[in-house]
């Protein structure tokens, strides 16, 4: 019954304008490359091999094990190949897993065990939940509503999504959950503006990149925005004796996140991936009126859509209230288990909404992410990540007497760009924050003045699809390439560093965070 409703509702747009409300994420789109991309592919492989050989065969530095050295060499080679794409990214991930095992960068059982990690399961379950929204056409209804309400101009749509991410950030700590909520709507809006996975345009790049950034950057605006924030605050309390309250964090960082996202919204469609004026209006003939007609044509909300909404709200409720679970139920329902509950209900015959064939899981993304996590975890477990942090600070040569602004700049820049190598935010928090606190104490500065601003940047994981779960999920849509992600991400991270640097001597000083 639900299927027939969906098909009837989606048909006119699909047939007349080639717009699909049922984009299959599991099907890899064929893309036309640019001349630069073909050149990168060609030279990327030897470049990766060169990096690997240099790192693997260099004399072992003090403090590093052979295992750590192998993990660094394998990960850097894979990073080069992910960016230049001489092979599809999932093939690079599989190659990385093989290299880690073969060159003894990590043990085989641990490499293969990555596929059982919570992050992979959460991705799989999130995609199934996303399929529920797509199948019941609830996502189409929401997309049309947003299109009618804000869709007169592409820039307004982009701003509306930034506002939506800001609204969701304090309520839903799980970034993957926020992504899954918004993804189906984004897919449809992108198509309305002529951006498909086969032929993505600059509107699609801006829409997906700005949401990717919004999800991660707004997480830094709230103490509860991510586990790594809480871990960092705990370290600052334990090691430096300074309690960081929710309000301290929010007043300190939220204005900065809003400023940076507004900059992203301003420069993205105007300079980085310029949306031509002709593309700023919906591609649909009739534009907003047509979308309004479509929305009206869908009629009243159907029982299947209500079922999907109920399931989704239930999962969101469990995600948003995780801190109260123990008080209510006597145990905590993790993000994965909450998603699992929703998925199980969706699959129950008669009561549910999905059959297995409807579940749209992009397995290539799962393999891609498994490889990325294997690389990141190998760096962490072998001690290579810890060694790299210590080595970088030692190379910079920070000694007592160095002016605060220089130390502050180095710490902020380092914590901003560190996500390029260390995939896990929590691990970065565990490794970096204590080192920064110890360094601040050694240099004679207040630990909070360096550790708290550094902690503010932990969730800014916006440069590569491998940096975080939302990035992977959004990358699976084919709306942007790795190099586009890198360019936009590096630009925003650099802008973020500058804004944080200015804030260090203005806003943070006024708040009493920096001296």
């Amino acid at each position, binding site marked *: 019954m639900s299927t027939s409703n969906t098909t009837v509702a989606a048909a006119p747009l699909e047939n007349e304008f080639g717009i699909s409300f049922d984009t299959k994420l599991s099907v890899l789109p064929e893309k036309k490359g640019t001349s630069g991309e073909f*050149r990168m592919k060609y030279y990327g492989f030897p470049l990766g091999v060169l990096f690997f050989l240099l790192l693997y065969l260099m004399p072992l530095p*003090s403090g590093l094990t052979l*295992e750590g050295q192998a993990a660094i060499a394998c990960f850097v080679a894979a990073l080069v190949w992910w960016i230049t794409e*001489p092979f599809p990214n999932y093939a690079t991930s599989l190659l990385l897993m093989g290299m880690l095992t073969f060159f*003894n960068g990590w043990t085989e059982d641990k490499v293969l065990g990555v596929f059982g990690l919570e992050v992979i399961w959460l991705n799989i379950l999130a995609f199934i939940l996303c399929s529920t929204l797509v199948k019941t056409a609830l996502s189409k209804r929401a997309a049309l509503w947003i299109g009618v309400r804000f869709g007169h101009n592409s820039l307004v749509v982009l701003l509306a999504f930034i506002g939506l991410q800001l609204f969701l950030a304090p309520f839903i700590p799980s970034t993957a959950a926020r992504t899954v909520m918004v993804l189906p709507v984004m897919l449809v809006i992108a198509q309305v503006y002529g951006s498909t996975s086969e032929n993505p345009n600059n509107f699609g790049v801006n829409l997906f990149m700005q949401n990717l950034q919004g999800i991660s950057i707004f997480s830094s605006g709230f103490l509860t925005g991510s586990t790594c924030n809480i871990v960092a605050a705990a370290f600052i309390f334990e090691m430096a004796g300074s309690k960081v309250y929710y309000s301290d964090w929010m007043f300190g960082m939220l204005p900065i996140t809003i400023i940076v996202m507004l900059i992203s919204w301003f420069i993205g469609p105007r300079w980085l991936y310029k949306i031509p004026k002709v593309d700023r209006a919906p591609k649909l003939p009739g534009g907003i009126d047509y979308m309004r007609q479509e929305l009206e044509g869908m009629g009243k909300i159907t029982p299947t859509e209500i079922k999907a909404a109920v399931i989704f709200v239930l999962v969101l409720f469990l995600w948003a209230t995780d801190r109260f679970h123990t008080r209510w139920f006597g145990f905590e329902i993790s993000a994965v288990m909450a998603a699992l509950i929703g998925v199980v209900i969706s699959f129950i015959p008669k009561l549910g909404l999905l059959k297995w064939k409807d579940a749209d899981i992009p397995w290539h993304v799962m393999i891609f992410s498994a490889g990325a996590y294997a690389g990141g975890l190998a760096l962490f477990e072998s001690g290579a990540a810890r060694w790299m942090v210590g080595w970088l600070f030692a190379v910079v040569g920070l000694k007592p007497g160095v002016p605060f602004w220089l130390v502050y700049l180095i710490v902020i820049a380092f914590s901003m760009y560190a996500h390029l190598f260390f995939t896990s935010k929590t691990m970065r928090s565990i490794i970096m924050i204590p080192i920064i606190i110890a360094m601040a104490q050694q240099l004679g500065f207040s630990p909070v003045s360096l550790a708290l601003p550094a902690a503010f940047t932990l969730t800014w994981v916006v440069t590569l699809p491998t940096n975080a779960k939302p990035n992977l999920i959004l990358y699976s849509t084919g709306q942007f390439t790795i190099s586009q992600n890198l360019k936009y991400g590096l630009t925003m991270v650099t802008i973020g560093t500058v804004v944080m640097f200015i804030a260090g001597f203005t806003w943070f000083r006024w708040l009493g965070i920096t001296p």
Partner: protein
Amino acid sequence: MTTQRNQSVRTLITASLLLLLGLMLPVSVFAQKYTRIAVCNERLAIQEDGSAQVTTALIVTDSSAELLAYPMMFGKQEGLQVLPESVSHEYQLVDEENDRWVLSLTAPGVDTVTLSYTVPNVLNWDEAGPFQFNSYKWGYSFSNWSNSTIDIYQMDILLPQGWNYHRVLKSMPEMDEKETFPPYNFLKDENRDAHLLLIGEDLKLGDECSVSFVFKPVTASTSMIMIGIVLCILYLWYFRFLLVKAKQIETDENQAKANS
């Protein structure tokens, strides 16, 4: 009657006090014989033939005991050689049952004791490996069977020349997942020896400090470089059509620009 009773009470109190004094005296004497090892540095330099040069440096504080019993590394072995010139204190192997050095101290106060000796067959190469990818396994465990608490215990294990640490399998103290630094560190000195420095704190009687690890020979593999070069050449030859495509796209784009 009252005087008699008073007298017997007095006698009872006096006897009790004497008994108490009698009990306290040996306790106080024993309490004085207390020794604390502030720092214990053990250096174990393993040689290619499997023997090891052992150096133990102890800094003893609050010492009032005349004798310090300290566990011998690897027990009493046949062929155990003690280098007399490097032993700064008189020693005698009296506690054979427990394999402990018993050393005379310059009591009371701070004292430094250094022991240096060679132990054969510390590393049995046949038992150690080779395992997968030409790796070898070994480990060392220290249990504090001395008569003192050790505040800081440092174990420095040097591998033979040409070998390096691959990974630590297990250590005591353990590294908790939430901790920033492990209890061990890998070091190198100028002559490229691989050190593993394990640190334990506040080792009481019977407490253990141990590490087991995998190590491998250091090889600068030219074959790997050759394989890398061959793979790159094959790739560049087989995928040369990518450059052709890139040029084609550029030509098309230039032509389109020229036409417009």
